[in-house]
């Protein structure tokens, strides 16, 4: 699905990523864990095409194609999705209108006609039910005045409606209470099948109790220093990141 080869990147001449290598196959769920400032969010942002980073080396192949020169929307059309750590509030745009615009932009890129209004509404309502979201949330302004948990649910809702091939979820679990965490995990597991891949970026092991990853990687100081299976996350949780550095 995605292959990251020897990726080096910096912000304002400060090197953040120092040679990332990572392969995620179709159907796999990977987790990247690491302490604050290790470069986890930078990696997610670079993959999604955020500007402001200088990439000095390496390449990223998404379904065999180098995507580093593509715009954020082209990457999205190719099937990449970033769940934001801090979803943006956009007053004056209704949630439902935004979702429809986004879905139609995706469909247009695949030469598909616009989605039927009724089909669309049914799809959204079905996904909202899964995420235990109030229906009136789709008529509110995009993320405006949403609580932290509501924003994260809304990210997962967007993910389920847009149905990406690869979802990068940047600290989707942060700031959630245990019930919200369970529901979010349910949503994420809803995307999981042999054609979809997921990259979870997280501080804590607790999300992985609900979503069992195929592989866990530890990122410190811009490099993946350790990779293993789900067991590695548990070990990290009990021993702390300092254990890895030793």
């Amino acid at each position, binding site marked *: 699905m995605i292959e990251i080869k020897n990726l080096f990147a910096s912000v304002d001449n400060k090197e953040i990523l120092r040679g990332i290598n990572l392969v995620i196959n179709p159907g796999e769920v990977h987790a990247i864990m690491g302490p604050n400032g290790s470069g986890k969010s930078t990696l997610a942002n670079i993959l999604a*095409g955020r500007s402001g980073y200088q990439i000095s080396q390496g390449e990223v192949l998404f379904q065999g194609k180098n995507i580093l020169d593509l715009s954020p*929307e082209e990457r999205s059309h190719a099937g990449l999705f970033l769940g934001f750590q801090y979803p943006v509030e*956009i007053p*004056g745009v209704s949630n439902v209108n935004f979702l429809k615009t986004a879905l139609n*932009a995706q469909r247009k890129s695949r030469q598909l006609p616009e989605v039927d209004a009724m089909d669309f509404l049914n799809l959204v309502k079905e996904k909202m039910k899964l995420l235990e979201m109030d229906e009136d949330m789709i008529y509110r302004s995009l993320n405006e005045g949403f609580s932290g948990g509501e924003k994260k649910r809304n990210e997962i809702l967007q993910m389920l409606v*847009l149905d990406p091939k690869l979802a990068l979820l940047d600290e989707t679990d942060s700031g959630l209470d245990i019930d919200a965490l369970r529901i979010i995990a349910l949503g994420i597991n809803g995307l999981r099948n042999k054609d979809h891949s997921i990259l979870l970026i997280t501080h804590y092991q607790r999300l992985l109790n609900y979503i069992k990853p195929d592989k866990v990687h530890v990122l410190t100081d811009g490099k993946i220093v350790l990779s293993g299976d789900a067991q590695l996350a548990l070990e990290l949780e009990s021993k702390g990141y300092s254990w890895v550095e030793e």
Partner: protein
Amino acid sequence: MTLDEILKNGFPTTREENWKYTSVSVLSTKPVLFSSNKAVAFNNHQQPGIKISSENTSLKTNADVFENLNQYFNTESYSITITENLAQPLEIIYESKDTQWVQPKITIKLAKNVSASVIEIFQGTVSHVMNVVTDIQVCDGGKLQYYKIQSHDLNTIHIGRTHIDIHKNAFAQTFTLSKGSQLARSDINVKFIGEHARCELYGLSYSKHRQHLDQHTVIDHAVGHCTSNEFYRSVLDDKSRVVFNGKVIVRENAHHSEANQANHTILLSSDAEVDTKPELEIYYDDVKCTHGATIGQLDDEAMFYLRSRGLSEDAARKLLIDAFGNKVIQSISDEKMRERLCQY
């Protein structure tokens, strides 16, 4: 007044405070140019409760050169009385077929406890000078919704003023959309005549190319216990310029007056210029007045968020610009009108 007297001092210049940011030097004072040209049409005017005559009414005091010209030529004037609640908004459409000056005057009287919507639409593709005066009286307990859509061709010059006198317990809500004309100056002058009256003034300006769009408002709290709210937003592109000047006067002994004003601007281009000026003239202590202005750009973070969901750069920009304007449109009480305004 003779024409010579009216034109004695010419048109205002930017040395005058009230015209500081807007130059009308493009206008010529040669009287031969002010020939008559009719341009007004009505829609929904045959509803019960509407009476229209072509009589002209007298001038306000303190009329300036443009109002005096309008009165002098008196090419087209209508006096409208509304005595019943209107089911449909009364539409007044201004469309010139000639490249001359157009100087219509509309007087509207909304009777006691009557509720009505009035829309003025300025449109058409023929370049001309529109010098229009609209004089509205909202009698005791009346409710007026007033919309002004200025979407002239980009060759047109628009000078428009709307006076609204609000009597006791009455309410007026106005919305002004300014997007047409090369040069537009639009004034809304509200005066509270009776106590416990309220007004809400909303406005949007969208400017591009080398357009110059000026929205001036004056709210005169001449009596006490009245509330005014004002909310204007502008989006500027290219080398365009927008002016917002919001003046609030609170007269002596206008007890318990409340006046709020906010003006927000987005600049899409570094060559665009906005001049935003709140002007408070307060002659009494027992009042509550607020004002605020912000000027910014489209949010990069929001742009990235939208593009990461598949929207093109243009579509994301358009969505954010519409969203910015929608915040004003959402303040309008009438749902049908909100939908209609979103189409402009």
